[in-house]
């Protein structure tokens, strides 16, 4: 198949998933509200202790982002599996890896990108400085696609398994640890004046690695789940 038709198939999957999400907005909005509420509970619980809030802000925002992503992972393939669309994708003349990549991109656009945009606003509650907020958004921008890519592998592996929701957390959360460490570390490094470049570069390296292996591993997992 020619490169252009692969790209148009990729675009078609992304458009389809966005269209489906628009028709069923509550699914996407629940995840975002979860993120907003979890992050907002901390300043309310801890009270106006600015130094403490500044210190915990990066960790709280990143952990909330991980959990929000986890919540949305179950939806990634479940509906397509139930109504037979996934079978059709596996039998398509377009390689399954391309279609899976499209689904992961759509997942990030719906559940990763909104977190990136919301995080600086929520960060204000923690009294973060402007440039720390910038670093936070940048770290999330590089880190959240990794969460979607790794999460897709877990969602593929637990497809059709009873209690898959809990299982996917157990499988995927340990793999999120490096992203959490370097993502939250980037903001802390910026706050202490060390500069966030090293952390952000490492996050970008994770992204490159996940973008290369993620769709391939997901494809293998889905083919096993369909058998």
């Amino acid at each position, binding site marked *: 198949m020619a490169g252009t038709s692969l790209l148009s198939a990729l675009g078609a999957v992304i458009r389809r998933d966005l269209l489906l999400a628009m028709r069923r907005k509550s699914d996407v909005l629940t995840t975002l509200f979860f993120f907003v509420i979890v992050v907002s509970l901390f300043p309310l619980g801890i009270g106006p202790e600015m130094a403490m809030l500044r210190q915990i802000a990066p960790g709280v925002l990143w952990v909330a982002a991980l959990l929000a992503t986890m919540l949305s992972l179950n939806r990634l393939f479940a509906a397509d599996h139930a109504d037979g669309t996934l079978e059709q994708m596996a039998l398509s003349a377009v390689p399954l890896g391309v279609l899976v990549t499209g689904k992961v991109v759509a997942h990030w656009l719906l559940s990763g990108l909104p977190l990136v945009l919301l995080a600086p606003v929520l960060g204000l509650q923690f009294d973060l400085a402007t440039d720390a907020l910038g670093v936070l958004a940048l770290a999330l921008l590089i880190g959240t696609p990794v969460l979607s890519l790794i999460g897709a592998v877990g969602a593929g592996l637990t497809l059709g398994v009873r209690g898959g929701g809990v299982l996917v957390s157990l499988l995927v959360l340990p793999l999120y640890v490096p992203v959490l460490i370097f993502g939250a570390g980037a903001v802390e490094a910026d706050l202490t004046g060390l500069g966030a470049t090293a952390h952000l570069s490492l996050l970008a390296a994770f992204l490159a690695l996940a973008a290369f292996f993620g769709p391939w591993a997901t494809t293998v997992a889905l083919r096993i789940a*369909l058998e």
Partner: protein
Amino acid sequence: MLEASNLECVRGEKSLFRGLSFRLDPGACLLVQGANGSGKTSLLRMLCGLSQPAQGEIRWNDEPIGKLAENYRGELLYCGHAGAVKDDLTALENARISATLAGAPVDEEAARQALRQFGLKGREDLPARVLSAGQKRRVALTRLLLEKRKLWVLDEPLTALDKAAVANLGGVIDAHLAGGGMAVLTSHQDLPLAAGRIEQLRLD
């Protein structure tokens, strides 16, 4: 040409069938028959490459289908129990999107034409949620017209269809076979096909 040799299917501990061989030439239709649980769907999924036979080999134009991968899938159309029809999309969107996902994008006019041919005139822009089971099945079957594929593998295509739609589907399959296409299908109902082209395969 589709050729299966010495296929064996194992589900759990039980062997559903073994030593199954057949050959399907252009213009021929294979009707797979058997009781519930005799392995009809398992055989069809094997022919598509969705599952692997415990033994034996399936070849398309003398090449194993596993080796052909996308080249084989580009010749194949599978319509299973689940119709791959999204409740939240309209009939038209369903038809166009499933064709695009299969790697054979169609324009809106072609999709409307195919839906009309399956008796869905006036329903094109309704969400599939409000369609009846038979109408959803018709939406799923429009793929037969939209994706130009050589080999059709249809698992119980007549489920929920009314008499007119069954006759219509028979005509569509006849035209496909007349054009040198091939079809493998299972059905508990009688499918009105031009006689002489149908080979029967019983799984017992």
